[in-house]
């Protein structure tokens, strides 16, 4: 209870991370709250498009929204992440048989969880992954809770595949290390593999048929992939998940791959390895991958900390064992401050002001062209149709639209801008920062601005001749 209260309070106080996708989830939650159903056909984005996603998280938040009002939008993700903290405590306690190591893990998990504090299904997938791991450690007695978590996890978010990949690595590691696996675990492994495959095939059938295996890159234009799955150096990754948990995880990997064997740790190591591999292969957004890897490193950190304590107790400095642990936790707190201080909100209040102006002052069917990252904001805040957003799936002309909007934002020629605007029947351009070279010419008029953001109106008398 202490852990849960502490974590919940911390996450509620911490500022929520705003991402482009969180505005899409917000619209879905609003739709469920008002109609009882998510919308599968988005009339505002891409000039009308089909959507494929799992609405489990959206129903959960919409249910809470009915009871708690707008507060639920922040409280539910925070509560789910607080549950992660509790689960890391339980897993770490289970691995180390130590109450204080579990508490240390719960505290250490908070900086990582703060990075995931956003309105996204990942906040539900993370506790389900941790709960599945916890129940798997005692599968003979916890079969039913495990199956419930597994069922929910498979239908929550595609990131859940990382956990199943981790389970496969765990089984492979145990076999390679010649550790006798209980029959129950092999049964769970087989069932999980078949179930998750089936669930994903059913859920994302349309996407698989349309995009094949390249669905992992979400039909994104190559230039956008480079931004979305941005490359990261090892140093940056270590800073993001925390210096001490990374060092502890590296130590545990070294120790239990080359020196000792520990079947229970292999399960956790499997998920960390799986998350690291998918980040490396760039098939998962970096932030999601790092949070998944980071949260599963925490029980490894707790295990290393417990070993350190045991080691210090055997030395002449035994009297300082508790002090050494406190010192480590202090260093952890200091190093965790780095990724937290680097956290930036993706959007500014000035963007919101301009978007609210668009909502109030423009006709309801006016199409607004905006950079892809701002597409979800245009549909959620301004409630206007937009040319594209960051969800490129099932869009045949995704590359064309992306290139057109890129040109619209960069071209020095008014005629090219007008031609692109006409192609999509767009009347307004939302410019979040910088300025457009052609805006001073006759066809465009600056309508509203706030900070660095502004909106341009294209005069209806200006039209490009079709070929």
């Amino acid at each position: 209870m202490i852990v849960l209260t502490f974590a919940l309070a911390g996450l509620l106080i911490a500022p929520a991370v705003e991402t482009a996708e969180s505005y899409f989830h917000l619209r879905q939650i609003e739709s469920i709250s008002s109609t009882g159903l998510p919308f599968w056909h988005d009339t505002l984005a891409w000039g009308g498009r089909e959507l494929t996603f799992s609405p489990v998280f959206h129903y959960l938040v919409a249910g809470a929204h009915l009871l708690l009002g707008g507060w639920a939008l922040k409280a539910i993700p925070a509560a789910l992440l607080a549950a992660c903290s509790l689960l890391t405590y339980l897993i770490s306690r289970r691995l180390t048989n130590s109450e204080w190591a579990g508490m240390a893990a719960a505290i250490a998990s908070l900086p990582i969880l703060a990075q995931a504090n956003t309105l996204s299904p990942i906040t539900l997938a993370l506790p389900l992954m941790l709960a599945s791991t916890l129940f798997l450690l005692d599968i003979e007695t916890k079969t039913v809770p495990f199956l419930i978590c597994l069922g929910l996890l498979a239908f929550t978010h595609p990131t859940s595949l990382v956990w199943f990949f981790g389970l496969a690595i765990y089984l492979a590691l145990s076999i390679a290390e010649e550790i006798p696996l209980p029959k129950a675990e092999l049964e769970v492994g087989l069932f999980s593999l078949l179930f998750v495959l089936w669930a994903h095939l059913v859920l994302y059938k349309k996407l698989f048929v349309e995009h094949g295996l390249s669905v992992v890159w979400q039909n994104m234009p190559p230039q956008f992939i480079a931004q979305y799955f941005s490359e990261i150096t090892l140093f940056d990754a270590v800073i993001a998940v925390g210096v001490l948990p990374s060092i502890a995880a590296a130590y545990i990997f070294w120790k239990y791959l080359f020196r000792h064997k520990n079947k229970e740790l292999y399960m956790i190591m499997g998920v960390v390895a799986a998350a690291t591999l998918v980040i490396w292969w760039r098939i998962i957004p970096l932030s999601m991958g790092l949070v998944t890897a980071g949260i599963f490193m925490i029980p490894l950190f707790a295990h290393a900390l417990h070993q350190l304590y045991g080691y210090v107790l055997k030395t002449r400095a035994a009297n300082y064992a508790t002090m050494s642990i406190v010192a480590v936790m202090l260093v952890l707190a200091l190093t965790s401050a780095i990724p937290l201080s680097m956290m930036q909100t993706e959007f500014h209040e000035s963007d919101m002001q301009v978007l609210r102006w668009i909502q109030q002052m423009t006709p309801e069917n006016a199409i607004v062209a905006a950079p892809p990252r701002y597409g979800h904001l245009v549909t959620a805040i301004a409630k206007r149709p937009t040319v594209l957003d960051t969800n490129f799936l099932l869009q045949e002309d995704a590359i064309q639209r992306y290139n057109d909007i890129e040109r619209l934002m960069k071209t020095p020629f008014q005629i090219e801008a007008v031609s692109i605007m006409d192609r999509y029947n767009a009347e307004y351009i939302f410019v979040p920062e910088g300025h457009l070279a052609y805006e001073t010419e006759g066809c465009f008029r600056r309508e509203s601005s706030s900070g660095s953001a502004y909106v341009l109106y294209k005069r209806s008398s200006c039209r490009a001749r079709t070929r």
Partner: protein
Amino acid sequence: MRYLLLLALPIVPLIRILQDKPLLPLQAPYEALSLLPPPVLLVACSGSLILAGILFYEILKLNKWSPETARLALLLYAVNPVILWAASGQLQFSLTCMLFALTWWMLQKNSNLHILPAACLAALGWWQALLAVGTGIAFKRWGATLLGAAGLLVFRPEVRSVTLVEFGNPAGYSVFPAILAIMGVITVWKSKQKYYRIYLLSTLAIIGSIWAEAIRAAVLLVFSALGARAIANVKNTKWEIKILQSLTLLVIVCGVLFGWLTNAYQLAEAPPSAQTAETLKSLREYGDGKIVVPEKFITWAQHFSGKQALKNKTALKTALESFSLDTTLGIIKQHRIKYVVITEEMRHTWERPDEGLQLVVKNNKTFNSPEPGIWVVKDA
């Protein structure tokens, strides 16, 4: 009774009839239609596959498989998604399946008549000839091997990579039958010493089938047999967690059925559409002259309209993509083209509605559109 499910094989043509669509989906059946009319082609395909299924069951019985596992294998064969594709007019694949099963069955029966189906198999193409060679080696019968080897010299291999049914390829593998086959391999691994030759050839066939459609006909039988062993193993082994055993079997059934339904839907929705077929058929009432359609539609255009279509790749590409009326007219004169057909289904060839030939045909000084989708070139 056990063969009753095999009667469901021609389900895709039945669905297409109900939807008023042309009986056969995809292009390959229309290439074979010069030999057989559509209903005969369908009967030939389904008949071959049903016979292959019956022979497959008999082979398993000859190998002393329990009736329950053999029935399971037959069931997996009947609900394999690729069977739906084959039964929808894929004559070569269906014949390969049947002739392979027949050769195998006769070899198991020690009949010298196996030479006949082996010869027919080898006469179908390079990969089928390779199958005949493999079957001959597996049973140490050199007649089939030599016939196959002769086929290898006569034909040239045609390579077509395969993906998964779930990834939109109706002729591909399906995820669940493939996983069941892997589980089956693990189940039968302990008898690898005894059957090493068959195991080795099956492995080579599975690898080869990634590029060769014909070999997939044989692999289909191997997968069904292995899948049956896997399911039997899941069902008959004592599980630690009882509920997981039932759930695993349930997921297997759902997974296999999902692949089958996905392919049934894909094939039922596959081109040509009713509108394309009707538009092209109406061209039969017009005078002689070549037609222009996007490359993917050439086979159907020729079949339904009874007219020749422009096949010259360079000319066709220019005609479809050019915005210039003069360039298009040049090609029209050079190749004596009289008609342009662009149906709704064909419009997906272009990225935009105002592109290339779609834009050019709007010039009513050069083209006349007597009915939707058809443009007739006006005489100069």
